[in-house]
């Protein structure tokens, strides 16, 4: 017994030692690690122009990042062509952000995503974003804070916005899930350059994989309200000052506008459910429960009394409903169901297989009723 054990151990060591050179080495100092790709359709040729942001882990070089422009018909050819201009071996393993220029996002971005899904080396948690100008210009913005390069900055930028619940998250996995889910369209952040610095300034509404419209930063709140849950969100509402006339303890002259009352609510928690009330007539009912605290008021109102507090809550409900009707109405015009009405419709109509195209035909005709319940839990440390 002992003899055979020894033999086994010796054999294992022998095989391990002689074979450890069978695998191709990837020495990190010799790699150009891509952190972001930008893609634009070249108007003159059939090819795509790619912008590749590279990063090197090498303690000897001070400027560890570089941007390479290359072109090719496919994603992988762009990577391979970029390698012609670099002494480093370009690899996709750390890819964090994919950005599509307007020329591609208006035609459909899905064809470019296949290799991301197919290649096991690429993470599913990278962000998919759309630029409102050619990505070549976007990614040459030179101010990217203390980030090592623009790719990492872009990733941080989007991640911060997602974590603070400002935009709807659109990782590659989530994008694909919305794309494949019948009755739900993907959303993507839209990036733009302001003062030589990239910023998120809107989210794009997609129909399947085509960008059809945008929502401003204020309107994103309503999309997110129906699509996701808030845990610590924030919203600013503008109300008519006349409605609160009787409650205002001391009127101050507001230079912003004389008859508006600005309210900011934060620590906002929400729970929304979409229900189908009539599948034939396409009637939907949306129940939303919101709670939060008032953090800013442009006029002093004593919220400690039930009267003004009730009034405030009902005004917020009315405001949110108005805005929701507008945002949903616009997405119906554009034919992009980013809220997931179709998912609930599909669930309510068992047995009939709904396709994405069917739903895009039906979606503009749906009617939605809103029941909104707002509760102001706190209002800071003043009355």
């Amino acid at each position: 017994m002992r003899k055979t054990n020894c033999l086994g151990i010796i054999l294992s060591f022998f095989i391990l030692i002689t074979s450890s050179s069978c695998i191709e080495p990837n020495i990190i100092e010799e790699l150009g690690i891509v952190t972001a790709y930008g893609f634009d359709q070249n108007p003159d040729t059939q090819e795509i122009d790619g912008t590749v942001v590279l990063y090197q882990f090498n303690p000897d070089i001070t400027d560890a990042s570089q941007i390479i422009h290359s072109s090719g018909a496919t994603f992988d050819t762009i990577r391979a062509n970029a390698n012609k201009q670099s002494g480093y071996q370009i690899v996709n393993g750390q890819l964090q952000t994919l950005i599509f220029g307007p020329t591609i996002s208006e035609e459909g971005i899905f064809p470019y995503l296949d290799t991301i899904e197919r290649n096991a080396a690429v993470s599913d948690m990278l962000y998919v974003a759309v630029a409102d100008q050619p990505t070549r210009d976007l990614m040459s913005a030179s101010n990217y804070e203390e980030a090592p390069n623009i790719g990492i900055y872009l990733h941080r930028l989007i991640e911060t916005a997602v974590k603070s619940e400002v935009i709807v998250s659109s990782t590659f996995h989530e994008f694909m899930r919305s794309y494949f889910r019948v009755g739900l369209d993907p959303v993507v952040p839209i990036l733009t350059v302001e003062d030589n610095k990239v910023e998120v300034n809107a989210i794009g509404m997609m129909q399947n994989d085509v960008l059809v419209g945008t929502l401003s930063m204020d309107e994103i709140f309503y999309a997110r309200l129906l699509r996701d849950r808030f845990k610590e969100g924030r919203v600013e509402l503008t109300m008519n000052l006349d409605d609160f006339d009787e409650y205002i303890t001391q009127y101050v002259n507001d230079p912003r506008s004389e008859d508006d009352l600005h309210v900011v609510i934060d620590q906002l928690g929400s729970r929304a459910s979409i229900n189908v009330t009539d599948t034939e007539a396409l009637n939907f009912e949306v129940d939303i429960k919101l709670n939060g605290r008032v953090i800013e008021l442009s006029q002093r109102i004593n919220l400690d009394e039930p009267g003004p507090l009730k009034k405030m809550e009902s005004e917020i409900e009315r405001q949110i409903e108005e805005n929701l009707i507008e945002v949903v109405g616009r997405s119906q015009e554009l034919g992009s169901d980013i809220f997931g009405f179709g998912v609930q419709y599909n669930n309510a109509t068992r047995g009939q297989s709904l396709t994405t195209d069917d739903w895009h035909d039906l979606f503009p005709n749906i009617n939605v009723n809103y029941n909104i319940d707002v509760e102001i839990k706190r209002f800071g440390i003043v009355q």
Partner: protein
Amino acid sequence: MSQLDIPLDQKIKAVYLFIVLHTMQIGVGIAGYPQLVFMEAGRDSWMSIIVAAIVLHLTIACIVFILNTHKDTDLHGILTSWFGSFIGKLITLVFIVYFFIMFLSVILNYIEFVQVFIFPQMSSWFISAALLTLVLYAVLGGIRVAVGASIVFFFGSIWMLGLLTEPIALLDYDGYFPMFEADMRAILEGAKITSFTILGFELLWFLYPYIHDKSKVHRYSQLAMAFTIAMITVITMVSIGFYAQGQLESKIWPLLSMMKIISFPMFERFDILAVALWMIIILPNLILLAWMLSISSKRVFGWKQKYFLYLFVLIAFICQYHFDNRHYVNMFTDYVGQAGMYLGFLFPFLLLPFAIYKRVKGKKKANAKN
């Protein structure tokens, strides 16, 4: 020939059956299973699993009933005493071939994991050489080492189930509705696919004589089956909620793809580690299969167990070298599944009438003596 006389120091306790049978069932198949069952039964895959679970538990009850008819013998011994030495040898030989193809399909599938996920250029002979050396080492140590290795590897890998909390946090509950859309045929097709995944319990046929406390065999084998079923239910339900329909249908290994989103501050991509760790999930399969192959061959042909072990390892090494692409891997996996349907699930029920007959006859004899 029919009664095996196994010394006490080579026997194991019945409680280990829980882990041994469970690790035999969970292997390479589980990584791709959610997609396969979803293709058939869709969102109602859980119903397929329930159907398969009922059949599985009945099959185990049947196997244990037959084994309990005789004390201290394995399938080969039972068949020999009932139908004579020729048929006994023939059917055991069929099982040997079946287990060998299973052995090969595990190796081929694992090589594919490694080449797709981590090292595309790693040569397949190297992976199989590494695996087969370990198998050789464990099986040469005897049944106790083989079982001990599977217990260690079981605890080395079971914690990975806890990592599913990350995909669970990203579940989309709309993915489970509408329910009850699949028709009966689809559910049965799904149950058939499920039965491929939970194969491996047939090892009980050959492990039985080595168990010390036979009265507990039934309890622990059934518990092992229940644990396996619970595990594949969780994995399947998480996959369905995590992916949209079109997405799940396109993933070859949904379970490994789900691991792609897991990331630790010091470890960016967990799926790389998961594939490496998958080796310790499949090693118990390989070790126990190799043990069974060699011991049964010894029973049939009567040479030393060691020689058969070397022979099978060598054949496996040569075979994997020749069948090294996705087409063959699929083909082998399908063969194992098809054969398993008959050898795993149908075969015990065919033997059941004979076992009942033997028992009734045995009782009559006992009564006549009195």
